[in-house]
């Protein structure tokens, strides 16, 4: 909590202002598809912003827009005071020291033809680090994410999903970035592996003071790892605030539905939650009907 208080006094590490992302339509002269509408978020130093929403809500697109992988139609992405929404490849190269990514699927985010050592050395080489120094750094990284050093000469396919995700995290950490965009980094993992990888994310933040933009569809995961949480629905942020508030006592109808939809591992409490959910759905239904009648 103290980290988020500090950051609110200084200027934020990343701020996204009125961001709009549109994809051109395939059909001739058709209206472009609007993936994101008027997004405003900020992330402070050492802070985690959790981004939660259903599939197609635009949460991944927001992460990609910050990384420069999605087209910014309007608005600004400001990183350390500079607008990076339309940064050139050369500016991106400088930026990559501070801004990194961990993707969802540890099976396709590592090039199957390259050894782990080469994968980890790639970002170092781009920044002009000498091979010997890069090798030393790669060993440090493997140690940091809890992988054995002999992993250097192995191929990604020789590792399990959780271990691959550790490699992907190590690659993101290689240049000691200030912000890591984590796009559903634990969704493809087993429960116990997910717990260990979440521990790793928390430990790294404690050790290095890195900030996370943590994208997930799972409210429990987001609650566990975030200082603040933003909820996305149909390309817009419908609710934003401290993690405790948003994930325990949400205001927006969608967040309320989301909270009560995620089942709890106890039959009696789950039965209670199920009843709560049905009541909420009935309430929301009658409310929309009333609004419809008024309109």
């Amino acid at each position: 909590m103290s980290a988020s208080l500090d950051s609110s006094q200084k200027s934020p590490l990343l701020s996204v202002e009125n961001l709009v992302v549109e994809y051109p339509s395939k059909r001739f002269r058709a209206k472009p598809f609007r993936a994101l509408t008027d997004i405003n978020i900020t992330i402070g130093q050492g802070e985690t912003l959790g981004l939660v929403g259903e599939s197609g809500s635009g949460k991944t697109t927001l992460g990609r827009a910050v990384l420069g992988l999605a087209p910014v139609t309007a608005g600004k992405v400001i990183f350390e005071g500079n607008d990076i929404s339309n940064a050139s490849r050369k500016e991106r190269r400088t930026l990559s020291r501070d801004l990194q990514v961990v993707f969802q699927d540890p099976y396709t985010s590592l090039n199957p033809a390259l050894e782990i050592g080469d994968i980890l050395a790639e970002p170092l080489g781009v920044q002009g680090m000498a091979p010997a120094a890069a090798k030393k750094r790669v060993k440090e990284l493997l140690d940091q994410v809890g992988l054995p050093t002999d992993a250097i000469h192995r191929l990604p396919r020789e590792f399990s999903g959780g271990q691959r995700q550790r490699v992907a995290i190590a690659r993101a950490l290689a240049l000691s970035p200030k912000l890591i965009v984590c796009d559903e980094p634990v969704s493809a993992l087993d429960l116990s592996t997910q717990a260990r990888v979440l521990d790793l994310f928390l430990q790294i933040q404690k050790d290095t003071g890195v900030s996370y933009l943590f994208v997930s569809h799972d409210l429990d995961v987001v609650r566990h790892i975030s200082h603040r949480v933003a909820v996305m629905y149909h390309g817009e942020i419908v609710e934003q605030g401290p993690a405790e508030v948003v994930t325990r006592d949400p205001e927006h109808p969608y967040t309320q539905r989301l909270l009560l939809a995620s089942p709890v591992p106890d039959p009696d409490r789950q039965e209670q939650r199920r009843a709560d959910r049905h009541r909420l759905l009935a309430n929301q239904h009658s409310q929309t009907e009333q609004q419809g009648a008024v309109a």
Partner: protein
Amino acid sequence: MSDSVDSAAVSADSMGLAAKPESGQSGTVVRSTVMRRLLKNPMGIASLVILVTIAALAILAPLIAPFEENFANISKTLAAPDSVNIMGTDSAGRDTWSRLLFGAQLTLLSALLCAGVAIAIGLPAGLIAGYYAGKFEAVSNWVVSILMSLPGLIVLLTIRAAFGPSVWISMIAFGVLISPSYFRLTRTAVQSVRNELYVDAARVSGLSDLSIIARHIFSVVRAPIIIQTAAIAGVAIAIQSGLEFLGLGDPTKATWGVMLSEGFKNVYLTPTLLLWPALAMALTIGGLVLLGNAIRDALEDGEKIKHRKKRALATAESTTPAPAKARQSRKSVAAVDAGTEHHLVKVTNLGVGYPQADGSIKKVVDDVSFHVDRGEILGIVGESGSGKSQTAFSILGLLPDNARIVGGSIQFDGNYTVAPGDDRVSQERLSKLRGKRISYIPQEPMSNLDPAFTIGYQLVTPMVRVLGVSKAEARQRALKLLTDVGIANPERTFNAYPHEVSGGMAQRVLIAGAISCEPDLVIADEPTTALDVTVQADVLDLLRELQQRLNIGVILVTHNFGVVADLCDRVAVMQNGRLVEEGTVREILRNPKEPYTQTLLRSMLEGKTPMTMLVSKAGSAAQSGSAAQKEPVA
């Protein structure tokens, strides 16, 4: 429906997962190089020997050929082989062996030229078109279409008429004509990896496009290009020789095509004249094709193991003790143990295994026993590789072909589907049950609906086949089922194609399909894993409501304890193919006895203090990269 195909793929996938930790942790992984694998392959080494020999003879032609290529001994035409002319002479008295050697030079060089030109045009164009797409791709597609619609031979004849009888010019022209094959190959390969996450990761790292193409994309294209080149070189030799054969080549040069033509003219006088160039061409082209195949095999790692697996399987089959086979062929099936008939499904000491390359059997399910009664929901919980899906598939009889039941039995409603001693699921017995009394809800709703047929068709057809009702009747029932599973506009969904509905809707359709033939048992394999949480809650509500109304037994395979708490009466926890713990849902979730179940439940995030360590201890983890954080060796 496409269920069986898909489930086979699914189970193959889970097999892969099961095998992964082993290969990952063994530490002594030997990766042989492509070259070494190529040389181990008899086909590869044979083709390499042939091609290297021919190439060596061609290079050394000026040294080893006894005569000049055009040296004619008029007094000795169409001579039979002797000590001077070891392959005889042609109608002008030229030495066949010498001409064959010089011909090899020209033929091989022209093939190389043709492939070189085609690669030089097709590869870069394909890389650019595939990686950047957009206008360049559109334009180059047009050019390629034009090139491919040109009649090749006529173009070559025209070029010959315009530029004279030069082998080189016609081969350059042919290279241009054939470059679309490289272009298309490259473009398709690049397109398939262009949106891979590792390419995105490289972009985030700030790699230039050129380095991304060189490091991450070219490696994907390299192998198919090499294989394609072997094939193209063969085609080039054939085309070039064809042109020469028609008499369109340079008459002053010895090539295999010219020699073939010469031999053809004298086929009644000296048939062997035809034989030698034909043999040389056949060997070369055959060698190239075999080399291409061998390289492909060497590049595809998995291929080898599969072959060996098959062979091992065949031997295993032949050595299977006779009693097992006899038992299988026996008509009547043993009666189940008395007092267990009332269980809807009873699995007793089940073992499922896959024969390995070394003849051993890798067990993925080991000594698993449980039962399900009517009106009861049993949850099977476990992580990937725990064997939970394999257990479900053995009840459904949808295990892959190479799977073996290595022990135990399965009985359904008082009859064995797998009797004790059987090493396969009896398809004969199960096909009568599957779809009628046992049905299946898969994990991926979208891939389990055939995109080529409407949803209505896919619901109606099984009902017509299984229940024997008329089409109109089945249609009525399908519409009612769609209403039952909570679809607001059943008529529209009935007429829709799968891609027109959402994932949650598709899963509702599959549930409708699963209950359409009024089954006694539904096996649901992670039915909500692919769905959004809010949709998952709706689907769980639907499953509960249907199960209670129809009083069916359900086996729910899942990894989510929340889903278990929501639906299940009893729970079985699986780990590494074994059943760890079984009990009522309250027992297992509240007071798990086994350490593994406790670990799994501890990993749940619900009710945990945010920002605290879940499994590793904060103190020890603070020492960077502590042992506590390291992945346990499974």
